[in-house]
């Protein structure tokens, strides 16, 4: 139903659309800048700097990356592996812990819920964690250092899934299954998980993003370049552009010789780093927004 708007309301509506649109463009413009810089020619970047309006364009950065692709592909592979293994494991152990906590007849429920909850209030800080992971578990320079510390499971997600189990899945369903002789694992895997896809998709999305974007575990635990993820590779290259150059100063693409296009390649790498997110996000925006809202309301 179209309601009648007063003049003042119409004006506010127009101003809002204009303002929101204009600001969206400003917020988005840094992405445009790095995309343009990644295809600007070296001479343009040296004389004009990183500009929205380069003098001339060139695909050298991408050609060079293509030719020297091994380093980048490897880092992509590491990030992908860490993200998939970490997120998948998290999506198994988080609901597995949440399910018993949601069962009113589970005697240890109170104690376990408190153990999960207390991790949200207090933590021992970085130093003991670092010493434990490196000295006790010898995680330094292993792929597990990128998967195990911090991100594998968090108390907040456990409580989120527990609340979902309690509120959205009828108790009768569990009782009926029990009468039919289903064991706990069957109830968990055949009833609880399939009925909680929305909340699991949401926490999976947040966990996946956390793994893909993580660079702090790499900073603390990884010094071996063969274990660099994409974020860590980006840090290394921002500090030292020559890191990309494995051996020769110039690279041969077909019959062209391309020397390292130092200024544009940084931005090309940033583009490559964001690309997977740009591709996946529009499909998952709905879950992301849902996640922000449930996360904020019952924190």
């Amino acid at each position, binding site marked *: 139903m179209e309601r009648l708007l007063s003049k003042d309301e119409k004006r506010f509506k127009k101003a809002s659309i204009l303002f929101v649109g204009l600001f969206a463009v400003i917020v988005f413009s840094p992405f445009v800048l790095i995309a343009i810089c990644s295809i600007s020619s070296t001479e343009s970047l040296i004389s004009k700097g990183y500009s929205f309006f380069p003098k001339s364009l060139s695909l050298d950065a991408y050609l060079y990356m293509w030719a020297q692709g091994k380093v980048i592909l490897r880092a992509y592979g590491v990030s992908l592996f860490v993200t998939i293994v970490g997120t998948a494991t998290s999506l198994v152990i988080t609901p597995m812990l949440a399910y*018993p906590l949601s069962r009113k007849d589970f005697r240890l429920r109170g104690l376990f819920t408190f153990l999960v909850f207390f991790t949200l209030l207090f933590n021992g*800080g970085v130093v003991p964690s670092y*010493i434990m992971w490196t000295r006790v578990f010898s995680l330094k320079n292993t792929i597990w250092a990128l998967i195990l510390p911090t991100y594998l499971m968090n108390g907040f997600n456990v409580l989120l899934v527990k609340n979902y189990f309690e509120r959205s899945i009828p108790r009768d369903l569990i009782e009926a299954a029990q009468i039919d002789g289903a064991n706990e694992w069957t109830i968990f895997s055949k009833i609880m998980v399939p009925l909680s896809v929305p909340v699991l998709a949401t926490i999976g999305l947040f966990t996946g993003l956390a793994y893909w974007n993580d660079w702090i575990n790499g900073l603390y635990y990884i010094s071996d370049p063969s274990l660099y993820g994409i974020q860590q590779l980006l840090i290394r290259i921002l500090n030292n552009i020559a890191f990309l150059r494995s051996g020769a100063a110039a690279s041969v693409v077909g019959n062209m010789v391309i020397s390292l296009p130092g200024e544009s390649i940084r931005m090309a790498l940033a583009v490559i*780093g964001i690309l997977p997110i740009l591709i996946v996000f529009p499909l998952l925006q709905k879950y992301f927004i849902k996640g922000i809202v449930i996360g904020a309301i019952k924190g």
Partner: protein
Amino acid sequence: MKRKHSFLKSFSHELPLLLLALPGLVYLIINNYIPMLGIIIAFKKLDYAKGILKSDWVGLKNFEFLFSTPDAWIMTRNTLLYNLAFIIIGTIFAIVLAIMMNEIADRFFAKYFQGMYLLPNLISWVVVSYIVFAFLNADTGLIPKVILPALRAKDINFYTSPGYWPFILLIVFLWKNTGYTSVIYLSSIAGIDRTIYEAARIDGAGKLDQIRYITLPLLKPTIIILFLFSIGRMMYSDFGLFYQVTLNSGALFSTTQTIDTYVYRALMQFNNVNMASAAGVYQSIVGFILVLGANLLIKKINPENALF
């Protein structure tokens, strides 16, 4: 005999649930609880040869030493002031954006714009540091190379000038987080009963009156809750923003050092485990007190939103 039987029966009832919970619990114990015990390191003179448990106790010596350095004051001041600015200005920006976003009736545009506002939140601080670098670096950056010359302003080397960073970091923070926070406010606004607005319109309230007398008062609970949650996080800072976006530049420490960056630098760069753990425990304990205090206030205002 009967007792034992019922114990066994209840055990066989609990066991499968216990087994399901086990992997997650083991992870929490390793990842969260063992490091909590590790706070004793701050009260010891850590000697790896002796091990943590056998290292000598030094009481509060590490803390005395930490607080006798100027670092302790600088990092505390920076952490608190940045958080305060982020909370206040961030909230205002997010609410203004949410109110205006709510005016956009066209679903397609609303979704499209929202995606653009959320995009900065999805990328890593490393990529953010690249973008900031593209704007600020002295050799090719957009601002020193293109904008400042156009304004005939004098050259600035941002990465060695600490005075600019409170503004830079505030802008970067707003750019990365406003879209995210505004989603929360937008969902609150969407939950407001439309008939209240209709009634106000009949009474002749203009749009700005409606915002002032309906929207903002009804957002108050959300604002207060989010504010108190942020108070609970006052001792913590985003390590990526203060470490990576500043490119770990030592010249900027006076305005960019926070407790989190101090802990990292003391531990990894200066190899000073005693100072790092003292600063970490200082952060954990004061942070814990703030969380408890904030929760107490939330409970008074709106018990439903209290954590416990």
